[in-house]
């Protein structure tokens, strides 16, 4: 009797078993791959819905960094007189803002992903990781548009020989830099999002945190303007190496070393893996607490 039940049990091929807990490392990446079309659909939705019914449409993607750069040039460049390492002020700030924006938007949006999507998460299942990933890709589109703007200024300055712009082969590292920025935003975002489902207060801290972090990153100042004894602190921030390398590659001024870049890279890898594991752990039960 018992034997027959066991054997019939074996014969049955369940395609899926929903159980209270699953392995910490069971990330269900194959399922994620099956839903790849959904990711693109979300990206498309974000892009279309952002500029629909606005007069300037996608132009806003340009205007935002231009206005911010303008303000930074006036306030930090002229009034405060912060150094830009002798590079053109507009390019200096634009480089910082473009990369920082990508990182911070990824982080911001990913961190509140459960809260923002509670209504849809509560009604239908799809691998939750799709959401943070779509945020990263959506913002990548935005970043690329803004990067084109940067390139326009860059080439203008390049052919204006009296401006101090000296690009070098480190430019080839650009994709790696973008990857690290995305990874950092995603990784931090996923960890924070997992925590915010339980501790809502973190959302308020996050806004401050990101702003503070920006001042701890060489966005509005070059690393070289920091006194020697503090440089190590600033360099502990994995975003520092990215922005400095970025400026070094395109403008020829900035701190570049393989060591710091490797540090940022490994930091990112660890962060993304850790973030994914934590996110997956929280994802299954968050609907009951959010």
């Amino acid at each position, binding site marked *: 009797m018992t034997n027959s039940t066991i054997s019939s049990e074996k014969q049955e091929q369940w395609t899926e078993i929903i159980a209270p807990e699953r392995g910490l490392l069971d990330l269900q990446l194959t399922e994620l791959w099956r839903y790849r079309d*959904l990711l693109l659909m979300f990206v498309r939705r974000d892009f279309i819905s952002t500029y629909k019914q606005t007069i300037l449409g996608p132009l806003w993607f340009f205007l935002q960094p231009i206005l911010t750069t303008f303000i930074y040039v006036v306030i930090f460049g002229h009034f405060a007189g912060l150094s830009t390492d002798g590079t053109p002020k507009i390019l200096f700030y634009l480089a910082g803002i473009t990369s920082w924006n990508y990182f911070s938007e990824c982080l911001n949006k990913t961190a509140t992903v459960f809260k923002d999507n509670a209504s849809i*998460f509560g009604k239908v299942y799809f691998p939750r990781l799709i959401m943070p990933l779509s945020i990263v890709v959506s913002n990548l589109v935005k970043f690329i548009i803004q990067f084109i703007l940067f390139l326009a200024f860059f080439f203008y300055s390049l052919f204006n020989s009296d401006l101090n712009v000296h690009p070098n082969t480190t430019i080839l590292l650009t994709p790696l830099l973008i990857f690290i920025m995305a990874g950092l935003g995603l990784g931090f975002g996923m960890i924070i999002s997992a925590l915010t489902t339980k501790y809502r207060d973190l959302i308020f801290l996050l806004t401050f945190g990101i702003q503070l972090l920006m001042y701890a990153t060489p966005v509005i100042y070059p690393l070289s303007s920091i006194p020697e004894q503090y440089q190590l602190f600033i360099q502990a921030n994995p975003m520092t190496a990215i922005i400095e390398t970025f400026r070094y590659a395109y403008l020829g001024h900035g701190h570049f070393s393989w060591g710091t870049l490797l540090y940022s890279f490994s930091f990112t890898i660890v962060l993304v893996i850790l973030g994914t594991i934590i996110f997956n752990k929280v994802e299954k039960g968050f609907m009951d607490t959010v």
Partner: protein
Amino acid sequence: MSDVVIRVENLSKQYQLGEIGTGTISYDLNRWWAKTRGKEDPFSKIGINFSPTQTTNSDHIWALKDVNFEVRQGEILGIIGRNGAGKSTLLKLLSKVTKPSTGQIKLKGRIAALLEVGTGFHPELTGRENIFLNGAILGMTKSEIKNKFDEIVDFSGVERYIDTPVKRYSSGMYVRLAFAVAANLEQEILIVDEVLAVGDAEFQKKCLGKMQDVSTNEGRTVLFVSHNMTAINALCNKGLLLKNGTVENYGPIGECVKIYLNNNAEQTKINLSDRKDRIGNGVFRFIEVILLNKYLKPQNEFLSGEEVNIMIRYKNINDMTLKNVSIAIALNNSFDTQLTNMANYISDKTFETLPHDSTIICKIHKLPLVTGTYSFNFFSRVNDDISDWIINTCALNVESGDYYKTGQVTESNQALFLMDYNFSLINK
């Protein structure tokens, strides 16, 4: 046994009541501290078993407790139960929106859950874009949606507006488009939760037909949750009746519906002797009321067109035989508007003599009410003096039923009451 596609084993789901989030950091730290010293979790309350309706001072309740059932391929399972019975929780677990506390669900095939129509619809996107977005959210790939696209548009009947943002749609069009996407999914198991409550009657019929179709012709399995007993009865072949988070009955749908309607029969008997908010000299007093079906069995929910018997026990305090007694029962809807008055002096005549302690019955031959909750007021007069008058004595729950014996139902948004009528041709 090879055709079992869903097997639910000892499934339980516990929810935490009250405010979640405040003070959890200190709780968690406490918990962690206890754990590191090898002590018991100071906040867990394992081993307490209670139903959701039972009041306890604990802040954890079991929304589902030890649920077991199996669904075979091609079956349409109707899940019924009162509010709070655990239907929605069960669907959430099946659709993986949330995880079970204990137990497991084994599945064969992909599940598409329709807990809401149009999940993820974005108002700024056009109908076409939303079909792709919604389809992808529900688990289809882009090419699958492309193949089904014409069918979806056709089913929805909104082809003229397919390139208009859905925010310009009427709510009916919106729902039709949303259901069309879901109805044309490829998944082997379809879960549908009360979505039919929206849309016009014709479209509802279309949806029901579609569900029937995917089950019988395509061999897919459907799980259907509804309060509409007529639809459940017509569509499903098996039923799962939930009560307080446990399975009360699992079997043929007719049996489940019957048990569901007779559920809580004990509660149907309502004691009126303790009511203080009454007017009158008390010569005749209403003591107890109970609603009975045509077999004179207590019943809690009635279907439109059913026979209802209102059985009232009364008493005279001085054990005197009563003379010339008028009794009236007023029927109110949920807005406390009086719909009608049933009085013995109108339909029959006043009771000339009544024993001092007995029971009277008021029979409603064919309940002409649509879905809703109604209430009764009782009134009695002995020799032109008001002897007892109680407002809101007992509730009458009505679910849509087969009033015309045709299997068709007048939509509740089309009617306040049902009329006994029929059509015929005069000049042959």
